[in-house]
């Protein structure tokens, strides 16, 4: 089998295993899971959004994805969220040397990728005609969480929306929606957190809350991929910076490297 087909087949395995069938319990504490992109290519017709991106993101790393509009940051994050298939290459979820998203029985599979991923996207991924509590309850039920009422109340309290529990999301300001979107993404305690311009719409108070939340996730050992083209205080938590340009990795500080130079470049650009 050609290498590209083999990688695609592996990716399909990951997709299949992402569907619920066996264990559906959410781990009490986030498991350490890394993400590997192997020569990932994504084409939309004739447009190549990603051109052979290879990245090994270890469990517990906090990676800042930098780059201008159209660099491929969102496409990369959507692939990691299992929302998009690569045209070529593979995305794997790993626990140390073990690839946990491979066939059950072939490798130790202790958590399913879909349970382990949380995404804050460009849109809020929330229903405007449901209340804040109804939105979180819906997703808590879909993720089969325990003690749903308590979990939702805690999440709303944490994001500062405890007084707006019964308000429809369409009545919220942009910043409030974004805080609720972040709360929704973190509700099931994912261990891989994908953030696509998460600070959009947040005021200073919201940014401070968000940075504190991220710091907690980092200390819990979560793997974070955060895309941004704007400098904000949460970037100081990054342990690694990867700059994308034209669908390729333009610069990578590496797992053991210092991301400050790349992050400083972002500050200079602004």
């Amino acid at each position, binding site marked *: 089998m050609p290498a590209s087909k083999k990688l695609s087949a592996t990716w399909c395995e990951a997709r299949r295993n992402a569907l619920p069938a066996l264990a559906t319990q959410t781990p009490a504490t986030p498991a350490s899971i890394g993400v590997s992109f192997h020569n990932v290519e994504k084409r939309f017709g004739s447009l190549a959004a990603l051109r052979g991106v290879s990245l090994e993101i270890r469990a517990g790393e906090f990676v800042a994805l930098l780059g201008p509009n159209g660099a491929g940051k969102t496409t990369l994050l959507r692939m990691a969220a299992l929302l998009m298939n690569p045209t070529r290459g593979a995305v794997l979820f790993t626990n140390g040397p073990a690839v946990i998203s491979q066939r059950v029985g072939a490798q130790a599979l202790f958590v399913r990728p879909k349970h382990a*991923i949380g995404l804050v996207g460009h849109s809020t*991924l929330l229903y405007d*005609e*449901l209340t804040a509590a109804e939105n979180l309850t819906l997703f808590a*039920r879909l993720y089969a969480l325990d003690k749903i009422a308590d979990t939702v109340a805690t999440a709303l309290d944490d994001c500062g929306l405890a007084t707006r529990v019964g308000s429809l999301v369409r009545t919220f300001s942009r910043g409030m929606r974004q805080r609720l979107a972040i709360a929704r993404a973190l509700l099931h305690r994912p261990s891989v957190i994908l953030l696509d311009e998460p600070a959009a719409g947040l005021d200073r108070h919201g940014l401070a809350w968000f940075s504190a939340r991220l710091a907690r996730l980092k200390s819990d050992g979560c793997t974070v991929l955060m895309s941004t083209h704007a400098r904000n205080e949460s970037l100081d938590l990054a342990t690694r910076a990867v700059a994308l340009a034209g669908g390729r990795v333009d610069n990578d500080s590496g797992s053991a490297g210092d991301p400050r130079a790349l992050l400083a470049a972002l500050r200079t650009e602004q």
Partner: protein
Amino acid sequence: MTTAKAAAIILAKELRLEFRTRELLTATVIFALVVVVLFSFAFDPTAAESRRYGPGLLWIAILFAGSLMLNPSFAREQNNETLDALRMAPISSFAILLGKILANFIFMSLAELVLVPVFAVLYNLSLAGIVWRLILVLVLGTLGLTVTGTVFSAVSAHARMRELLLPLLLLPLLTPLLIAAVESTASLFAESPALDRTWFAFLAGFDIVFLTASWLLCDHLLAE
């Protein structure tokens, strides 16, 4: 989580959203009633004429109303990309589709609950003695319509001209269903009512085929 449980959660969400806004149901009922009333002006609805044309008019009204109602089923998930959130949840794609099919089936059934008595009055047709058999035909016909319509709503949701695209895709495909439903209904409105079992079985077969196809293709249907 089982597919049934996940579908029930999606169904509850759909019902809550619809009964909060009442956008789809109100528009569908009014549209279906307008179609039936307008058709009643087209000819003198004597008992014989109504028996001849009534079943066809009833199912055309249901089909048009259905194509209007089914379009937003997936399109309204585009607003805040909520379909992505559903796709990321650890549930099967079929659970998402099934929840929406069941919700649409309930909405269409509610619309028919208003439509059919009005239709019977306007066209001088008696429902006495055929109610349960008519309900069976309506259930199977509506199920076929909602399964096919929901699937094509998912297909057309990403399209720019989705309001036009759905009827264009859906109506030709529903022709066999329309014929079977009309023939089954006509057999009930005949002078000596007796359900035409051949067409009724055809209706059931249509439902089974399209429900199975939607189960087999759901991953592709909901993929980006």
